[in-house]
Every structure is written in C-alpha cells, then in structure tokens.
C-alpha cells in the first residue's frame, strides 16, 4: 500500500479488567514525526507499551513494515527496529553513561554498528561524551533525558517512540530536546512522540492524533490541529491561542 512504517488497526488493550485503549487505529509514515496527544490517562503510554511489546493487545493488529508484531516480546521488537524511550526515562542509574550506551546497542543486529552508533550519539549529545564514566543516576534531568534518547538510538531504530521526553525539564532543555527530535528526523528516523507540551509537539509534527479516554477523537496534520479551536481550547490554552 502506501509507505506506512507502522500501522495500528482496531487495537483494544486492557489492564486486567480495565480497558485503557479502545479500537485505536493510526498509522505512522516513514520519515515523519507523528505526535500523540491527550490528557493524562488517555491511553497514550499504554499504546506505546503495546507497540513495544511490554503489553499485549486483546484485539487488533500492529503492523511494522506490513508485518504483524503484536505477539513479539520487547527484546524482539527493539531488534526489528522500534526503540521505545519510556516515560520517566528509566535509565540504568547505577551504570555509567558509556555502559548505558553499550547496552543500547545490545540487539544482535546493532552490535556490529556499535562504533558508528556511539559516534553518532556523541555528535548529537556532546555533553554525554564528557560524562562518559559518570553514573547515569548522577546526571541532571535534562542530561538523563538525552542519555535515554541516545541509548535508544544506539539500537539504530527506524521508529523511535518517545514518551513525554520534555516532562519535568527546564525550558532550555525542552527546547534542546525538540531540536534533537527534529535533527534525528532529518537523519531519517521516524518518530512517534507522546507529549504534554502540545504546542511544541504540533509545531514539529507532520501528523498528529488526539486520544481521549482510550479513543482517538481527532487526527490530522500538525498545522491543522494547531489551528483547530477545540485543540487550542483543550490542550494549548489561552496563552498560545492568542498568538
């Protein structure tokens, strides 16, 4: 069909008896940035967890390059080219920066590329090179987020999924993170981005979806959603809509 890198069809996901994702369908085209927006508890994180294999869907299909991956385990999903930077970063805080990066290239497919990948990570995040032998837990919040992204791209992903990368960061780091996402996308990495920082996310996104209580309620290009009065009211607020 078209160049859908990732396609989600009719996905239902449950936590025990509680359904978190209802009949969600979306697609991510190769080379784009797709933003996934919505309030807390809307099901964004659950959706990412299901794509990366941490959770498994009750119904529906996830296709990556046309191949189903809903039965795969997380360690298999990352090996076929989907990296997930989870919410809260979840670095190996007792390991050094370099050890975190080495483990980023753990999938067999990516091990031979380790030297190149490390160079790429260092050129994108020069601050990490200086912190090479420091424990990941001793980095600042912004640096930790950079390390989390760097660790994910060590696996040479085709699709990078980022869960709230700007959460809790200072405005300076937020700006840096968005610039990085933009730069990575220029290096042919497709990005699926979950963000609370709706305005910034929509500015760089080619495509965006809005989730509400587990259902997709809106979809369109980043600019369309940015101009949509409902989106402005619900997620961006007065401050932005006046500009």
């Amino acid at each position, binding site marked *: 069909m078209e160049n859908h890198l990732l396609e989600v069809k009719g996905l239902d996901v449950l936590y025990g008896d509680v359904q978190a994702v209802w009949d969600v369908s979306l697609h991510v085209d190769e080379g784009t940035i797709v933003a996934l927006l919505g309030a807390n508890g809307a099901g964004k994180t659950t959706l990412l967890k299901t794509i*990366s*294999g*941490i959770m498994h869907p009750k119904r529906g299909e996830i296709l990556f390059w046309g191949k189903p991956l809903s039965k795969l*385990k*997380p*360690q298999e999903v*990352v*090996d076929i080219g989907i*990296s*997930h930077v*989870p919410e809260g970063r*979840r*670095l*190996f*805080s*007792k*390991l050094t920066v370099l*050890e975190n990066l*080495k*483990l*980023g290239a*753990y*999938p067999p497919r*990516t091990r031979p590329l380790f030297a190149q990948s490390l160079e790429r990570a260092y050129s994108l995040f020069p601050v990490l090179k200086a912190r090479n032998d420091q424990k990941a837990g001793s980095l600042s919040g912004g640096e930790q987020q950079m390390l989390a992204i760097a*660790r994910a791209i060590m*696996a040479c992903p085709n699709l990078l999924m980022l869960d709230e990368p700007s959460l809790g960061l200072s405005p300076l780091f937020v700006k840096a993170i968005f610039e990085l996402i933009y730069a990575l996308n220029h290096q042919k990495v497709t990005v699926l981005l979950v963000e609370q920082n709706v305005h910034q996310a929509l500015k760089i996104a080619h495509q965006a979806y809005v989730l509400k209580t587990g259902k997709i309620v809106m979809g369109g290009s980043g600019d369309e959603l940015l101009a949509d009065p409902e989106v402005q009211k619900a997620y961006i607020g007065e401050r932005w809509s006046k500009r």
Partner: protein
Amino acid sequence: MLEYLSFGLIIQLLVNGILFGTMYGIAAIGLSLIFGTMRIIFLAQGTTIIFLAYICYWLFTLFGVDPYLSLILVVPISLLLGAGFYHALFKEAAALEDKNISLLIAVGLMFLVENLMTVIWTANPRSILTTYTSLVFRPMGINIPFTRLIALLMAVLSASGVLLFLKKTLIGMAVRAASEDMVSATLVGISPHRVNAVAFAIGIGLAGIAGIGVATIYPFDPVYGFIFALKALISLALGGIGNVYGALLGGILLGLIESLASFFLSGGWSDAISYAVFLIVLMFRPEGLFVRAMLKT
C-alpha cells in the same frame, strides 16, 4: 573465662571468624546475583552447596581426585547445573508478577535435593581426609589451617572474578541492568531468560566453589545445607542486597560475630546471636551495613 584472654587469642578469634565467614560470603554473592534479576531469595543455595560438596567427596573417594583439582570439574558442572535449574524449574514462574511461586519452587528444590542426598549418602556426616587436612600454619603463634586459607583465597578470587565479569562483559552489564530495571532492560533488547540463566549459572558456580571449601574444611551432612542458606541470607542482609563486595564483607562480619560469640558465650549462643543481629540490622539499616547512604534512593 576472661583470665585466659590475651591479645594473641583475640587475633586468633578474628582470624577464625574471617576464615569461616568467607564461605558465607561467596554463598551470599550467589544469593545476591540471583535475587538481582529474579527477585527471590534462592533458599536452595545452601543445599546446593552441600550437594556440590558431596560431588567433590565422591570424586575424591571414588576416583581419588584431589578436592582442589576437582575445581576444574565441579565449577563447570555447577555453572551448567545453575543454568539447568533456571531453564527446567524457574523459566515459567519467572515471568509471573507473583514472585512467591518462584520462592516456593526454590523451597521445593531444597527439600528434594536434601532428601535425595539423604538417600544417596545417608544422614551420617561425611568428610574428606587428605594429607593436608590437618596442616596448620602458625605465623606469629596464630593458627591458620591450610584448607581454610585456601578457601579464603578461592572466595576472594571468585568474588573478584564475578565482579570483573559484571563490569567488563556485555552480558555482565546486562545482568546489572536487569537487576536494576527488568522492563527497561527488555526495551534495550535484553532477554529476561538470558540474564536470569546467567545469574543462576554464576550463583551456582559460586556454590560449587563454596562446596569444595566446605568439603575440605568441615564434616557435612544433608541438612547442613539449610543452615548454610540461612547464614548466607544473614550475610546478604548485613552486606546489602545487590552489592558483591558487600555480600562478601557481610559473610566475613557474620563469621566474626559467630567466632566471638561462641568463645565468649557458648557454641549454642552463637546462632542465636547471629539471628538477632540479622533482625537488628534489618530493623535499623534495611539497606545493609555496607551500602553508602547516597545509594539509598
């Protein structure tokens, strides 16, 4: 009793404690590694140590293999045994949220092995007698039995080896990463089964070394294993879970406590004191004595 006390005697008690304690220490390192990725206390550790001590005993009595030479057989056997334990017994249960199942399997394994050993080797204590069993060095009037010195050496070398493995190899890093955050580890591509099996293999590999240490030092019987596991657990609590050197130091500290308690009170009191120390440490410093406050969070 105190009138017999001299400086030399104190030193002797301390040396005895250290030499005793290293065996607890390497058992505790094994427990710590397995706990790291599996999140269970592998209660069958002590019984496995005794089982491997019997293997060493058999190699010696049936084939005349020197206990220290048998290292080259016992260590590979125990590494395989560890990986085998995981794949045969724990693989399914490890994936469950409820860790009690894995713990129950460990308890079941402990009783099974204990009873098998009683059937095969009877409940009578066994020991290995070699030409060097009663060899004692006496530097500056302090008695240092040769077999205990070698056990200390084996413990220190194997602890350093494990530490090096965890630091320098990719799979070692993966074990440390998985001990910290298993979900995050799977997201970078680490298979839980792989790291669990490696942790088990090394844990039981260390049990093999401890088994040889035990077989050359003490007479042992099948039920001794459970007590040994308890001692390893106390060492782990003293040293702090997830800390290789801490576990070794915890074992040495326990050895010192036992050695001093059995001299100043009596042999019967020494166990009561160790369990009391166990509880007190858990009450006031649940993170262990050798974990820096910085790592608390």
